[in-house]
């Protein structure tokens, strides 16, 4: 049986069609009519993959949602939430997702101040029984060594070091901190 083995020239269809037209290939292959009736969306022609040079970037867009900003703030404040993600369940709602939904609900009610919304959403989750523990925020270089020592001691004796922290935390997180009482509630073992 005659054939053309040039996979870099045209597609299998064009090669077969031309061979048949030239009379070289006597029998139509089985798939020929089917291909004719239902051609693919792109003709399977060989293309040499070329690298992109200079400033050329691929046109693929990043996928971001408006909720991502809320999620970023949540993770910055509370680290990964108290509950682990259950990926087997397709309808699983993580703590962060519940937080985001509360936030959006409150936003729809008319609130505009981001800080207030954040705090209110946190309070609403607390009311439902979800306890959120704040994490140590990124510190400046001067406080760095001092606070790292403090946080180590905090890690060892989690209950006692609590009272020393509010004065330190007040500096970077003045707007978020409601009361030391909330801290102690947050850090008590769940």
């Amino acid at each position: 049986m005659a054939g053309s083995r040039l996979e870099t020239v045209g597609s299998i269809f064009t090669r077969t069609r031309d061979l048949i037209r030239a009379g070289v290939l006597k029998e139509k292959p089985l798939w020929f009519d089917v291909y004719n009736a239902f051609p693919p969306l792109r003709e399977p022609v060989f293309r040499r993959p070329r690298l992109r040079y200079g400033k050329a970037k691929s046109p693929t867009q990043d996928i971001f949602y408006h909720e991502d900003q809320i999620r970023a703030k949540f993770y910055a404040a509370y680290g990964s939430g108290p509950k682990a993600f259950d990926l087997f369940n397709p309808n699983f709602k993580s703590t962060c997702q519940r937080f985001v939904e509360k936030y959006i609900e409150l936003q729809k009610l008319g609130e505009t101040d981001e800080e207030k919304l954040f705090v209110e959403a946190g309070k609403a989750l607390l009311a439902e029984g979800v306890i959120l523990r704040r994490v140590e925020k990124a510190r400046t270089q001067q406080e760095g060594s001092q606070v790292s020592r403090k946080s180590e001691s905090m890690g060892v004796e989690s209950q006692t070091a609590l009272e020393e922290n509010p004065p330190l935390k007040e500096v970077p997180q003045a707007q978020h901190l409601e009361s030391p009482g909330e801290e102690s509630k947050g850090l008590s073992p769940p």
Partner: protein
Amino acid sequence: MATGAVLPRLLGAGVRAAPRGRAAQRGRTLGSAAAAAAREPERDSDRSARILSEPLKHSDFFNVKELFSVRSLFNARVHLGHKAGCRHRFMEPYIFGSRLGQDIIDLEQTATHLQLALNFTAHVAFRGGIILFVSRARQFSHLIESTARSCGEYAHTRYFKGGLLTNAPLLLGARVRLPDLIIFLHTLNNVFEPHVAVRDAAKMSIPTVGVVDTNCNPCLITYPVPGNDDSPPAVQLFCQLFQTAVTRAKEKRRQLEALYRLQGAPGPHPANPAAPGAPSPGAQAQLGVGHSP
């Protein structure tokens, strides 16, 4: 070789008898029946031509659209691609976007491509074509081989010897019939290079259907299906879809042949050009019952 379908693992089992002829129809007849005998082959070829041309007139003769939906593809995690650094340049048109560095495949496009691929597979199976399932992923080797066995076709999930397709008479025997369609569940081999069979099938003018992930090259594949080829649910879904398409097509062929044989003269438009709406496996049994005389 009687039914080569019994040994799906060996490509050598692809050796089949010469094209199934209608010569058996000519029986021992007397006298004037000789004229009838002369008419038989004409009617047979006429019938077979009609059987072959009938499905091509409908856009979805085997109703493959009902086998899947965008939601079922999503649930099988078909939309998850590799990280953005692994992306192949030619897969960019099929990618919806990149979520935190992971490429997400556009399932709308996947659905269209998958419908075309399943339709083509079904038509090839309808015409009695040999289908070869190829993959080099060891995790799914058993699954693919059993899929091929269950639909009566062939699979090659082991090391692909060079020249298996291009030098077949030497490696497999003098008069081997090569596959009429190659289905790739994984286009890459174990060192993340394109499988040799992709290029060889293009050389031998064998159409290919392939699941292409975001790190694969879809150029030489006739009917690429952009989708995840690494997650087990995704591969299981694809195997199941191809198996159903092939089985349906073969069943349809049996029915049409029986129908035309019974009707004798050129039959009317077949009763159910599209497979019945019920996608249940019981549908095939019902069809068989419905068409019996």
